[in-house]
């Protein structure tokens, strides 16, 4: 992209951020919540995309980081009386550590095995959270004391989303992104071209772990109650993957669009069809995976509405 286009995109992002900043004052509490969660899913989808869209290592257990962040914040706020903002920093740091520790062995696995291993890791973390009740209160969950107006978490999530978008954008449109894509395309050829695949994968994986953790922390403080099944919910990972796929894996706009569309659709069907909505959701997943594996961006590129490639 030319410099001109980069500036244009930055301005666009700024306008959207500004709009979202003024929005909550005119909205009902429900809509405010809805917007917050939409922004959260943008963060989640973009993060998942950094590891799974770019490098092709499909993480089927990314919710683990979300849950770790949620628990880190909840424990510190509820049991140790921290103010919630610094707990987000702890969540980020913890997620980075776990990302490196887990990523190093697990990224050696190929394709389907990596996916299953990550699923195992996420489920394993859930079980640990249930069992280690001295720390996590186990199945009882943690209730957080409420001291905020509903605006604090909104703005925190807005800031997180902007940061995530900027970082994903910078990576995606730079040579770093090109190299991550190269790893996905053909890891052996990539290494023969000088790319230290292990280091790049690990960096992408760790980075992709940090944002969901912070999001989980903000969410914990918003919802004021967490327990293992709710924060280590496998459907959250599915949502991340589906949103990225719907919008277009491996692009930057794709996950954003996918997150907004899917979350809105989900809320709409849940509100209007309370019993059948999960069946509709399942059907929707089937249709997207079957007919649009390259997502909306892929569709747009085929039609010539968008350019091929990320670096021009």
């Amino acid at each position, binding site marked *: 992209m030319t410099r001109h286009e980069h500036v244009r995109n930055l301005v666009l992002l700024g306008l959207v951020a500004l709009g979202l900043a003024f929005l909550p004052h005119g909205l009902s509490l429900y809509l405010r919540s809805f917007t917050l969660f939409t922004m959260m899913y943008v963060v989640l989808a973009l993060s998942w995309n950094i590891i*799974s869209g770019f490098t*092709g290592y*499909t993480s*089927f257990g990314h919710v683990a980081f979300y849950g770790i962040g949620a628990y880190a914040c909840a424990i510190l706020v509820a049991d140790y009386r921290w103010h919630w903002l610094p707990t987000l920093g702890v969540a980020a740091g913890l997620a980075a550590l776990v990302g490196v520790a887990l990523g190093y*062995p*697990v990224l*050696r*696995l*190929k*394709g*389907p*095995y990596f*996916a*299953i*291993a990550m*699923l*195992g*890791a996420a*489920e*394993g973390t859930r*079980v*640990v959270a*249930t*069992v280690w009740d001295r720390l996590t209160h186990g199945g009882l969950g943690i209730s957080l004391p409420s001291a905020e107006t509903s605006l604090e978490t909104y703005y925190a999530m807005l800031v997180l989303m902007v940061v995530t978008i900027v970082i994903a954008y910078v990576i995606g449109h730079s040579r770093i992104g090109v190299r991550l894509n190269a790893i996905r395309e053909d890891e052996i050829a990539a290494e023969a071209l000088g790319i230290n695949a292990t280091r790049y994968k690990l960096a992408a994986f760790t980075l992709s772990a940090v944002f969901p953790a912070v999001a989980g922390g903000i969410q914990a403080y918003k919802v004021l109650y967490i327990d293992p099944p709710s924060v280590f919910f496998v459907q959250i990972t*599915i949502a991340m*993957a*589906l949103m990225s*796929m719907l919008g277009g*894996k491996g692009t930057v706009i794709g996950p954003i669009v996918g997150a907004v569309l899917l979350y809105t659709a989900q809320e709409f069907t849940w509100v209007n069809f309370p*019993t*059948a909505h*999960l*069946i509709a*959701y*399942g*059907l*929707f*997943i*089937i249709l*997207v*995976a*079957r007919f649009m*594996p390259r997502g909306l961006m892929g569709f747009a590129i085929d039609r010539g509405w968008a350019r091929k490639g990320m670096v021009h």
Partner: protein
Amino acid sequence: MERSEIRSLYLLAAFLVCAYAVPFLVGAWVGNVRLDQRWLGNLATVVVSGVMQGGVYAMFAVGLTLIFGVMRIINAAHGEMVMMGAYLSWVSFFYLGVDPLLAMVLTLPIAFLFGVAVQKVLLNAVVGQPELTGLLITFGLGLVMIYTAELIFTTDFRTIPYAPGTVHVTSAIAVGQNRLISFVMAVVISIGVYLFLKLNRLGKAIRATALNAEVAMVCGIDVQRIYVITTGLAAALAVAGGALVSIQFGFNPETGVLYTLQAFAIIILGGRGDYVGALIGGLMLAVLENLVSLMVPNGTAMVELAAYGLMIFVLLIRPGGLMGVKEG
């Protein structure tokens, strides 16, 4: 064998010994281990029970490994097919008055056709795509199956009272009669499937395709047909597994999820498209689970953890799964 192969085998053996020792160590530390005759009898029962359970696991897990081997698709709805089998046998028992095991004569062909339909409508378009697409499409299918079942049957747990009472395998070891019958049925079916894969021309074609689909095509094997038959077979085996499970445990629409995860673990342990591997994996998993539930406090949650732990560590030591198939 290459040097690194041998090294990883040793490492694996060492790890497995440790893995099986852990429940004992934890149990000893917590005080659950007693070295008297009665406790040892308990232990033996648990191990035998585990072996029997493993036989049933292996039977439905092999379907998953077949689908993975032949089409390289991870069927995230496999547990739901097992659940479907459980409900089918429940319906035949309570509404048709038919013995749930006898009902398999009817339900297995239905399951086969279901598998065929799933393959033609859903899976065929997804073969050859990255694993995410297959995972998502089967996950969607699983969701539809779970919540349709919920609509029809509600989330209440169902059980089938069948062959109650225990059988004494030896004087010290007693297992439930229903478990023994399940095991025998599983063995019969498994032997049948094993022989089919080994001796029958179609079965051999399936194994060939699982090893290398391109070469199979060149050898004149109609790979399309193999895909369809494999999925049908996998579905039938899953439903059979469900029937056998239904006479032992309670179930509801969501119990399939756990079975899917266990089947995943068995794929990892057992490699792709290999019956013996699935059997070994199933046995390993079931025995470990039973040992854990006997000796480790908080047994049920830890059982899940045991499955994941086993799976992850085996993967880390041998990235191609237990049977050592090198990927890529």
